[in-house]
């Protein structure tokens, strides 16, 4: 560790991983309720489990991004963080707000929660992914502002690199597009239209910049390739992101009440969206081939390459499956959407957090050359368990989606939603099985932290 203030990243990483365990646990509970409707009902209805699951995901990624930023910013700018104290205060504020929100979901009926948290003053709740009570949403804004302030002040006083520029652009975008969460028009269609400004322009525009910056940072560190070369790749990736991702928002405007021209604009622009993800694969593998050093932390590079490949599969390939308007007519809002949602979020964003943790955590724990070979071997096992688990889960959901479409939407012999879902019990069982594998993989990953160092 070159700068002592990088140490603030550690609690962020640890808490992000704990939240991930919670997320997966709630995913499994949902997978059981999918099959046995009386499981946990009426104690925790499905919508509550789902809120906890997806909100944990969002919050854990924010923690992960913050940890990653606090680790890489001092090294990139070659100066200590502007205020490590602020970063720690922010951490605790966010932690308390996050935990309180989850407890609120679990112990207060949602309708009551809306009343208790001033939702009648400014209604923002009850929309997918943005279910948070008003105080939590305001809290997120404050946390993000304090985080941005810290990062910007550090960049201002230090060295400016392409990585820091791209990262801060992504973070500013994250902050700006979150503001649409506060805009809830009475017209459902208008509401949905702007809802995507937060959701799509996060994952398919601004977050991709953050992803690219973190990936570039780790690749510089573990391959020793010179910066000029890395910078060019980074620019190329984010250029393709911007060109395709912004207008690609149109792939959500096909069948929700927006005008017809989105059928064309959305299909064409989003058909290009897999490209930046494909470039990430080329990037990771080319840098590996041209590497100047053999870093002892081999597993960090494995995660980096894994992120590129799995991100491409989840976002690029599974995204492309349903992104053309004539196809989306049939796939819109089915299990196929859920299949894509899982592999893309995991492959791109959960894995980039793993990549950063895998690279930075050993250093923060006083092991500049990475963990012991034995620990790395355990970590590699967990890498495969989680990846295979997520791919299996995604394939199961994809099959479920195709059957669902054939049952409900194609031909004349149609059957209803509930009947179709009941016929899918077997495949939902398989999904749950792969979910257990993912959880086992995560626990194995946790175990790798506790593998004893060999005496040298």
């Amino acid at each position, binding site marked *: 560790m070159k700068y002592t203030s990088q140490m603030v990243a550690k609690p962020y990483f640890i808490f992000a991983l704990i939240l991930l365990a919670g997320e997966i646990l709630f995913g499994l509970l949902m997978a059981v309720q*999918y099959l046995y409707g009386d499981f946990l009902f009426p104690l925790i209805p499905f*919508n509550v489990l*789902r809120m906890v699951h997806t909100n944990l995901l969002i919050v854990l990624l924010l923690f992960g991004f913050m940890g990653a930023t606090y680790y890489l910013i001092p090294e990139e700018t070659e100066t200590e963080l502007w205020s490590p104290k602020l970063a720690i205060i922010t951490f605790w504020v966010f932690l308390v707000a996050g935990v309180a929100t989850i407890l609120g979901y679990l112990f207060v009926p949602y309708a009551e929660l809306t009343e208790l948290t001033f939702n009648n003053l400014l209604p923002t709740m009850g*929309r997918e992914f943005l279910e948070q009570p008003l105080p939590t949403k305001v809290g997120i804004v404050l946390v993000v502002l304090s985080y941005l302030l810290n990062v910007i002040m550090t960049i201002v006083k230090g060295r400016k690199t392409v990585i820091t520029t791209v990262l801060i652009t992504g973070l500013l975008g994250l902050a700006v597009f979150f503001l649409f969460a506060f805009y809830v028009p009475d017209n459902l269609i208008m509401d949905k239209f702007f809802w995507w400004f937060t959701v799509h322009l996060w994952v398919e525009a601004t977050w991709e910049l953050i992803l690219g910056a973190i990936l570039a940072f780790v690749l510089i560190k573990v391959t020793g390739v010179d910066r000029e070369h890395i910078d*060019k790749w980074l620019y190329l990736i984010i250029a393709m992101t911007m*060109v395709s991702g912004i207008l690609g928002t149109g792939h959500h405007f096909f*069948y*929700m009440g927006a005008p017809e021209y989105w059928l064309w604009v959305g299909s064409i622009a989003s058909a290009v969206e897999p490209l930046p993800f494909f470039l990430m694969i080329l990037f990771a593998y080319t840098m590996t081939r041209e590497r100047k050093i053999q870093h002892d932390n081999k597993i960090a590079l494995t995660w980096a390459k894994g992120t590129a490949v799995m991100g491409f599969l989840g976002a690029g390939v599974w995204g492309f499956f349903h992104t053309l308007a004539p196809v989306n007519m049939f796939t819109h809002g089915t299990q196929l959407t859920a299949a894509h949602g899982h592999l893309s979020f995991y492959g791109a964003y959960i894995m980039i957090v793993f990549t950063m943790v895998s690279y930075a955590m050993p250093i923060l724990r006083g092991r500049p050359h990475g963990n012991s070979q034995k620990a790395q071997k355990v970590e590699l096992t967990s890498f495969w368990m989680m990846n295979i688990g997520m791919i299996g889960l995604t394939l199961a959901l994809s099959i479920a989606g195709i059957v669902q479409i054939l049952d409900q939407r194609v031909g004349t012999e149609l059957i209803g939603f509930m009947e179709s879902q009941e016929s899918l019990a077997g495949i939902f069982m398989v999904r749950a099985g792969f979910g257990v594998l993912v959880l086992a993989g995560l626990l194995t990953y946790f175990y790798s932290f506790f593998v004893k160092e060999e005496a040298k």
Partner: protein
Amino acid sequence: MTERITKSMAKNIYYGGGTFALLIFLALTFDTVHQIPKRSNQQNMTENVVAGKKLWEDNNCVGCHTIVGEGAYYAPELMNVFQRRGGADEGTFKAYMQSWMAAQPLDTPNRRKMPQFNLSKEEVDSLSDFLIWTSKVNANEWPPTIEG
């Protein structure tokens, strides 16, 4: 292939292409915002419809259902439940909604459950009006069939 591209070229595509895409996006957004009221029949958006939307959100119906194809995949799509369960007749649908909402949760063992929300008659009426309004939005012929 990437050898021929220099860092400054890539940088220019990023700034140029990004700005260009953003400008088109803003223009289309502007146009869409002007078209949505017509496509969604905003003139029929009564107080009841607005109240229904608020109830939809306050009870997090979207945590189990999709509406216009967005939401959760645990329970049926509700954009066209007006046609599916009400035969596109307002009286029939409203009566159906009253009895459906009152009957929850059904006691079929291990069938997926919908909670009891303890809503008043007027509230269920608002929700019905909201669903009826939604069913008439011009969503380019979606959903493809009555089963959602």
